[in-house]
């Protein structure tokens, strides 16, 4: 069983597992967020059923960016004792978690909810992972919103 706090893995994710990774003797509160593969996705043409998803990651950079998010969380919420972020790659079925985030604090009022929410927002913005959605009649790469602070600074299109 891995004890890494920031991990990109093809193995199915477990909330009990990530919870163990952040459990500390002085922490009475653990908040988690799970991103789950939805069976229905809204598109411009209306609701569409998903068969399965395929996630591709730039693994080394993704883990590095996740660790950076952990550092940001600890700097913003000094009471946070541990952060873990896990993201799965490969084929995922409906109902399976694609990403898990866990934040441990001594007490529930120490920012664990806000810190967890911050972490998923940041993950969506900077962690290099992409999703390919598959239906019976086709597939599509899902791109995130353009991040002005990245796009303006980096790459040829700036």
């Amino acid at each position, binding site marked *: 069983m891995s004890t890494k706090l920031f991990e990109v893995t093809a193995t199915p994710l477990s909330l009990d597992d990530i919870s163990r990774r952040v459990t500390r003797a002085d922490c009475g509160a653990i908040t988690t967020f799970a991103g789950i593969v939805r069976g229905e996705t809204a598109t411009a043409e209306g609701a569409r059923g998903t068969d399965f998803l395929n996630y591709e990651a*730039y693994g080394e950079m993704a883990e590095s960016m996740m660790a950076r998010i952990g550092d940001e969380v600890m700097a913003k919420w000094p009471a946070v004792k541990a952060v873990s972020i896990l993201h799965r790659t490969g084929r995922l079925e409906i109902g399976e978690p694609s990403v898990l985030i866990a934040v441990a604090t001594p007490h529930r009022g120490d920012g664990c909810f806000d810190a967890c929410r911050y972490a998923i927002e940041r993950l969506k913005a900077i962690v290099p992972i992409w*999703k390919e959605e598959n239906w019976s009649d*086709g597939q599509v790469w899902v*791109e995130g919103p353009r*991040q002005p602070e990245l796009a303006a600074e980096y790459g040829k299109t*700036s």
Partner: protein
Amino acid sequence: MEVRVRLFATLRQQAGWSQQPLTLPDGATLRDALAEIDRQYPALSIGTRTFYAAVNQEYAKGEQLLRDGDEVAIFPPVSGGGIDERMTRWQDDGTAG
């Protein structure tokens, strides 16, 4: 000098490869590398699409100087997490609109 170029997701699929070596003159910047990639692989259409670039697993600016052995990655806007994404339809011409 030689750098390693890595592509991901749509870009990898459009190009048909995930990594290639790229020879550049000494003193080349990331912007120079991107121009050379655009010249050698026009199907990527990186001159007209939104993408991000990283050097050695860090987001990088166009003026960043490259060194021999660097890893240059280019990829579309990220969509990790599996939720709340904007859908981008795969076009018939092989580009993401």
